[in-house]
């Protein structure tokens, strides 16, 4: 391909056209906006007509009244002069009596028309100002601006319905990853908070009900670059509506929705595509993992916390003994089921007798120490303060700690404002539902490989997790480094093409520094994905093949070094084989006999193929 045009053509024809699966139904979102505009025009009719009539009458009237010209002869002023005079008089500019001083008769008429026109203007301007203040009009304008902004997006974005605590945490994580978002929330306060938030990218936000398909469509549900839908509102019904809309109109998109009700979760799962995040359910699973494998749990929470997170402390929950669970609502039920599944004995404290409560339940207000004593707290090993009231939870924790200082304390935090109180209490495990949701959604959607890793991780055992944490800390420090993936294909690793096919690329060699091959890059390979098979923390001796996908943890500078190895073939040859290939074509030709011929031929083959 010596002809540059042919090269150009080859590069562009290889690009696959973005396949945009057609949404089955197109939703017209502009009708609502335009109807408001029409309403405004309709409301402007009366003031405008009043203005025209007043103007015409005053102008014509002034020309009909006889005046006296500069030469003392009777003269009427012309229509044009009259229009000019009325224009500056009515708009209160007032240049004086032009073109010549008026007679008393003319002044009489002008006085009359001044009052008339001022009333006309006041009416017209007042109407315009009222319209501008009008709530529906402003909303229509905001919707229109938002729709235009979304339509102009030219990068993949996630549609986030609900910008509460969880949404805010997620938005920060995604913004740090450079992932674009579009936000809908029904509270305009939250949208204001979004606009005030310090994000790198400009995140379009709309204050509207997300359950309305029109609003979802305006937010880019049928946009070609929409990459996923996150239903994170506090209201389960709204989340269900968003999930349904997204699953029906764009079955190709991943949908993640939050719910705290198992029944709603089931209804969401009926639409196949959505993955449902139930914070209570997940917390129960986490607690079980924490009981069985504290290091795995530590690793999981660290990876889910997003870039820059500090390594959490490793807890040591008691694995034998009896737990006391206060509050037997949705959360309590999940926890009790998980604790029992882990083989632990559980005593339940419930504020009110319930129809379906099981025997052995202690009934009473758990924040009273007498009730806690009845549950025999002294012989228990752990306590879960899981009511939906933060004050109750905290007083429960204080009482429990007084009765039995060695208790393992688990609490549920409901309000973001109580965070400081729970921190002061130094509980051993804290559930903040919004944070669980944010971390979970982040892990699921930021890169699919991380989610794969997290799913397969518990099976590898506690010791493995502890070793991996050691490795991560040694290589990347105690703050969670950025996680990034690399696919060894022609796009991302053009320099390795031929060597990969020959099976000569070993993972350990790839992770050497391009500056000094003896130095190892401070990068930890977390996952190797080949033909759908996942290998967790692949060994250093692994031989890599084409189209392998790798998930790494490491700082940005290390990432750039690795990328230069993948892209520049002379660096690749040095890093992998300690060979010095000249970068320029002439030297390459001259030094040809010095190198292994098979490799250089191969290199040239790949290079020329790339054009």
């Amino acid at each position, binding site marked *: 391909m010596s002809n540059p045009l042919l090269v150009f053509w080859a590069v562009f024809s290889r690009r696959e056209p973005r396949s945009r699966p057609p949404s089955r139904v197109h939703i017209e979102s502009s009708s609502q906006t*335009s109807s408001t505009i029409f309403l405004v*025009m309709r409301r402007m009719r009366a003031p*405008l007509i009043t203005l025209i009539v007043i103007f*015409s009458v005053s102008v*014509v009237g002034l020309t009909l009244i006889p005046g006296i010209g500069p030469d003392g002869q009777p003269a009427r002023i012309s*229509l*044009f002069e009259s229009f000019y005079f009325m224009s500056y008089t009515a708009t209160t500019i007032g240049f004086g009596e032009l073109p010549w001083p008026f007679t008393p008769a003319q002044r009489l008429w002008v006085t009359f028309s001044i009052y008339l026109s001022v009333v006309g203007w006041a009416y017209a301007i007042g109407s315009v100002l009222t319209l501008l203040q009008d709530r529906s009009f402003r909303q229509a304008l905001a919707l229109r601006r938002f729709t235009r902004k979304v339509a102009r997006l030219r990068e993949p974005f996630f549609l986030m319905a609900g910008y509460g605590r969880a949404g805010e945490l997620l938005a920060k994580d995604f913004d740090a990853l450079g992932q674009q978002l579009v936000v809908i929330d029904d509270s305009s306060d939250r949208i204001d908070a979004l606009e005030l938030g310090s994000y790198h990218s400009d995140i379009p936000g709309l204050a509207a009900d997300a359950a309305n398909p029109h609003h979802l469509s305006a937010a880019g549900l049928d946009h070609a670059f929409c990459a996923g839908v996150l239903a994170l509102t506090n209201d389960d019904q709204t989340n269900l509506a968003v999930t349904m809309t997204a699953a029906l109109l764009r079955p190709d998109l991943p949908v993640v929705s939050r719910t705290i009700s198992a029944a709603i979760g089931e209804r969401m799962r009926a639409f196949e595509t959505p993955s449902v995040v139930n914070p209570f359910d997940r917390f129960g699973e986490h607690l079980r993992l924490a009981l069985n494998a504290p290091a795995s749990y530590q690793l999981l929470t660290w990876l889910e916390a997003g870039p820059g997170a500090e390594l959490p402390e490793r807890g040591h929950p008691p694995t034998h003994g009896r737990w006391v669970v206060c509050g037997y609502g949705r959360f309590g039920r999940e926890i009790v089921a998980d604790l029992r599944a882990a083989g632990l004995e559980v005593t339940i404290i419930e504020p009110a007798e319930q129809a379906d409560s099981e025997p052995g339940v202690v009934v009473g207000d758990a924040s009273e120490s007498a009730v806690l004593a009845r549950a025999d707290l002294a012989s228990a090993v752990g306590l879960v303060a899981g009511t939906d009231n933060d004050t109750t939870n905290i007083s429960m924790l204080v009482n429990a700690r007084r009765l039995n200082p060695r208790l393992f304390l688990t609490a549920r935090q409901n309000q973001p404002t109580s965070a400081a109180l729970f921190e002061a209490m130094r509980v051993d495990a804290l559930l903040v539902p919004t944070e669980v949701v944010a971390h979970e959604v982040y892990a699921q959607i930021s890169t699919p490989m991380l989610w794969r890793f997290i799913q397969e991780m518990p099976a590898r055992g506690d010791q493995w997790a502890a070793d991996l944490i050691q490795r991560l800390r040694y290589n990347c420090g105690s703050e969670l480094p950025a996680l990034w993936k690399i696919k060894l294909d022609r796009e991302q690793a053009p320099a390795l093409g031929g060597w990969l096919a020959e099976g000569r690329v070993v993972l350990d060699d790839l992770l050497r520094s391009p500056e000094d091959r003896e130095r190892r890059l401070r990068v930890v390979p977390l996952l190797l994905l080949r033909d759908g098979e996942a290998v967790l923390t692949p060994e250093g001796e692994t031989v890599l093949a084409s189209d392998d996908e790798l998930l790494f943890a490491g700082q940005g500078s290390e990432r750039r070094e690795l990328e230069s190895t993948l892209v520049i073939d002379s660096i690749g040859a040095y890093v992998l084989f300690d060979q010095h290939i000249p970068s320029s074509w002439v030297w390459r030709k001259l030094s040809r006999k010095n190198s292994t011929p098979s490799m250089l031929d191969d290199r040239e083959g790949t290079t020329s193929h790339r054009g």
Partner: protein
Amino acid sequence: MNLEKVIFGFFVLLAATLNFGFFIGDIDNPDQHNIYELFAALAVSLIATVLKFGDRTQIGAVHLATSLVADLQLIAAGVVWVWAKEISAGGMTASHTASMVSLSGGALLANLVSVVLLVTETVTFHRG
């Protein structure tokens, strides 16, 4: 009977008739074209335009378009008159009159289209 329709029809027709009244006569004879009639035609035409605001139907859109054309032509005719009367040295010459009247002739055509639309709308209206 709908009062809104009466007012609407009244102004559309009045705009057309005033425009016709101004237009008729020798095209280059200033005495046969009264400037007050042009002024009235323009004012009524503006009112008719405003009345057509905010109609979402297709026919409403065409109505608005014809009115805007008429306004534009009448304003152009008015500017020609001001130019001839106040600015140019020769006053109201035959050629100035001709261009003013022909501009208003264009407006008349637009107004006639408006009237035709109005009549069509009325004829095709079926109750029940």
